[in-house]
């Protein structure tokens, strides 16, 4: 695109992700993660390593915060003052939330991260200059920077292991930012197939690597525009609307018994990932409660 094109359409570019005007047509990829089913087993994370050529950085770099897991499982101990046995851990698989109004996009000085028509937040490695503004501005801290040239770092990919690399995904070099792509390489393939057949991608035709691995089926992924998709049905049943920063169900006086929520929704980033609250059978009341 030329500069004058950019200038003349400036407002449009700054507001590419039309939360309020045109709905995505025909695709808007979205996810729902059921925390009640998530057991924190990390299968998703390792599947992502396998699919997306993530480097294993080793202990020292890990200690510097250089780990590259695009999807991580966060563990939280309950914080409502309860003790065991009503205490427990909660697990939260955290990946790029593919925000509709992504805070990372607006701060990139070179336009290396921007929105696709499918509602994904794309990261273009060959355009990235490594300013890391995007990471600083990401409320979810899901962007990972290549501090080293991992392909040439010892023991990251010894010659034998390079044979495992997925040729559909670039191996990133030093100085670029990377993050979860919703397995865009898989999306492109099915979209291409569908287009050749003159149809749109059907529900179930594509899975992300994390979704595919998840032993409990906690992750669902699909085209939220497609009313047949499970993701669409889940979002609708939970009354979570993509384009709102306060959901109607949360404004009522009575607490909703619907489990769907988006993390840090109040920041108006409009994430494309909905989480479903963990459910827990709890002791009747705190006063009657004794710890072991």
């Amino acid at each position, binding site marked *: 695109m*030329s500069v004058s094109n950019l200038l003349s359409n400036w407002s449009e570019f700054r507001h590419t992700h039309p939360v309020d005007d045109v709905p995505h047509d025909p695709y808007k990829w979205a996810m729902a993660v059921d925390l009640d089913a998530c057991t924190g087993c990390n299968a998703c994370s390792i599947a992502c390593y396998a699919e997306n050529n993530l480097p294993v950085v080793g202990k020292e770099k890990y200690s510097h915060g250089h780990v590259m897991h695009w999807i991580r499982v966060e563990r939280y101990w309950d914080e409502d003052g309860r003790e065991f046995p009503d205490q427990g851990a909660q697990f939260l698989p955290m990946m790029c939330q593919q925000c509709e109004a992504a805070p990372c996009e607006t701060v990139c000085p070179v336009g290396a991260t921007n929105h696709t028509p499918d509602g994904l937040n794309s990261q273009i490695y060959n355009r990235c200059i490594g300013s890391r503004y995007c990471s600083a501005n990401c409320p979810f801290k899901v962007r990972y920077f290549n501090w080293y040239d991992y392909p040439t770092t010892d023991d990251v990919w010894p010659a034998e292991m390079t044979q495992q690399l997925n040729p559909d995904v670039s191996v990133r070099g030093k100085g670029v930012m990377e993050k979860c792509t919703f397995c865009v390489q898989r999306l492109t393939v099915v979209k291409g197939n569908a287009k050749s057949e003159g149809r749109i991608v059907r529900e179930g035709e594509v899975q992300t690597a994390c979704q595919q691995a998840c032993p409990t089926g906690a992750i669902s992924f699909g085209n939220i525009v497609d009313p047949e998709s499970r993701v669409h049905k889940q979002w609708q049943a939970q009354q979570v609307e993509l384009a709102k920063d306060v959901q109607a169900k949360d404004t009522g006086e009575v607490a909703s018994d619907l489990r769907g929520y988006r993390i840090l929704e109040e920041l108006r980033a409009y994430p494309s990932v909905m989480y479903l609250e963990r459910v827990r059978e709890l002791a009747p009341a705190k006063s009657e409660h004794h710890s072991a």
Partner: protein
Amino acid sequence: MHRFLRLSVLLMGLFVASSYAADAPSARMTEDSLGPEVAQPIEFPHFRHAGDVNKEHPEKGGMQIDCMYCHTFARRSAVAGIPPLQKCIGCHQSIESVKETPRIKQLFEYWEGSKEKNIAAKTPIPWKKVHDLPDFVRFNHERHIQRFVFQQNRPVQEACGYCHGDVKTMTVARRSKTLSMGFCAGCHEKDHLVSAEGGKDAGNQAYWYGFTKPVVKTSGALTAKGPNDCWQCHK
């Protein structure tokens, strides 16, 4: 104060000027750009296979073989594929007239093996890559062939030729377009027809990859802009 303003006006002027310059039709995008001559293990004569029939001097002309007869993966895979050795042999074992020519003898050395040259039987020919893209670019042959050849009924050689040039006149292929991002964008920024002319219906959703919805032109043609989603090619 005013001096300060002057500077910004100047800068602004430069900026606007440069953007007009950038807007001018860029030569880069259309110009042929010859790649290096690449020595191949066998000097494969594309013109003999794909070239037009020469009625006066049949020995100088070609046989108009469809590109996809040999580059068979192009319509169903991201890569077009170098023809398997078996494909060459499949025809050439029954073409007696050229069997003793140097190139065909060389070909059979790969198939049957050659002790002198230390080649095992059925060794794939180590062709050199002629059209190489940077590793972060993913071109998809299938989509282009499906669109131009199967949905719009364009001749195969024309469709392939958009990027590969006039291979049917070449001996070994040589890159003849820049294959740069500007080259790709040169096509993709243009409006293109959404409904097919004379071919199969391209489907009313051919604009899916575009930012913009199709526009109905005064001529009645339905056009859209091509993909300008970075992730289409870079991922």
